[in-house]
């Protein structure tokens, strides 16, 4: 979706403000926000693509005025409501008021190291060979889906070159919406700065994205 999250090339946000000796967390609640988000995800009722899509579905005003952990928590509340684990009434009073959907699993403390060390690999076998090879010229699709996609707006309808054929990965555009993993080949595609930004682009700049096969057509 053309949401607030699609930031590449937007203007007006001011300078980057690196913080010297930045702490890992800026408040105690951030630690709990990280933990509760990972632990709730470990119940296994939504995938990373649905999580991302829920975050980017925040109203742009809300998205831009929230820190990243705030975005996580707001999206997590939505996910928990959508999947039947909490109600809006419970969130308002801060107490359990009754039942819940049955979780597939509940993450226990002793399982955390193995869970983190395993992660969530998303490589999958793909039926059929890769359509493109390194060096091929491609054009990215010009589409504007209302659902989730990982093709940024700045890189749509642009001519680039396949830099590398990667692996088969779960396709986020369907996986985010419960329509299956549908793995596709993923490619690193490189564009000249001028192809993306036109006149005045830094002549030394190249930009690459990682693109699923259905984002691409031969150029």
């Amino acid at each position: 979706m053309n949401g607030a999250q699609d930031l590449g090339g937007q203007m007006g946000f001011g300078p980057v403000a690196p913080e010297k000796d930045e702490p890992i967390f800026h408040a105690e609640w951030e630690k709990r926000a990280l933990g509760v988000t990972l632990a709730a995800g470990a119940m296994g009722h939504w995938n990373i693509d649905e999580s991302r899509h829920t975050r980017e579905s925040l109203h742009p005003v809300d998205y831009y005025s929230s820190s990243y952990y705030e975005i996580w928590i707001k999206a997590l509340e939505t996910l928990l409501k959508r999947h039947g684990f909490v109600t809006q009434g419970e969130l308002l009073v801060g107490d359990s008021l009754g039942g819940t959907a049955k979780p597939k699993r509940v993450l226990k403390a002793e399982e955390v190291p193995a869970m983190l060390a395993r992660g969530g690999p998303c490589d999958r076998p793909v039926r059929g060979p890769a359509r493109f090879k390194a060096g091929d010229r491609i054009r990215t699709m010009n589409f504007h889906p209302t659902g989730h996609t990982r093709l940024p707006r700045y890189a749509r309808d642009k001519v680039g070159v396949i830099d590398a054929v990667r692996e088969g990965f779960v396709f986020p555009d369907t996986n985010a919406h419960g329509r299956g993993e549908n793995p596709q080949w993923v490619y690193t595609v490189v564009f000249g700065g001028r192809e993306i930004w036109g006149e005045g682009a830094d002549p030394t700049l190249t930009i690459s994205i990682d693109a699923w096969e259905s984002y691409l057509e031969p150029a």
Partner: protein
Amino acid sequence: MAARVRALETILTQKGLLDPAAIDVIVETYETRVGPRNGARVVAKAWSEPEFADWLKRDATAAIASLGYTGRQGEHMQAVFNMQDQHNMVVCTLCSCYPWSVLGLPPVWYKSPPYRSRAVIDPRGVLAEFGVTLPVETKIRVWDSTAELRYLVVPLRPAGTEGWSQEKLADLVTRDSMIGTGLAKEAA
């Protein structure tokens, strides 16, 4: 927000959906065990051992796993090597994808709109805000992490570090140098 997160944790715990002790272990992992020192060791080894550097180029996931660094947000790794004539910089314009297994949790600026919006269109301007000025002829390659590959920049090895131990070399490898918004520290 503190009250809101506490409420969420309370409700989920009351319903038996959450073990609060699991949160403690998650936090402790990223506070004490998984951080940019992991990545610095990878870089120092690549600087010291050409065979390891080759492996890291070909199969970063396996090479990095050989040091014990695996897992969440590092399942599929790619190492990109700075060269005299090309500097690499990593961003996630769409969210905040970051190689947790080697760099730990991302800093606030990496997840914030100023960096995510400008890294792809004005990388030199962004670098200047980090105090980095590259020669005008140096090529800049920006890697937008739009899929599940996570990128680790291998900065150039500083001059005057011949014969240094890997532990000593790792002290020169800053987090920002592995994102591409910095360079490795000079030999003191």
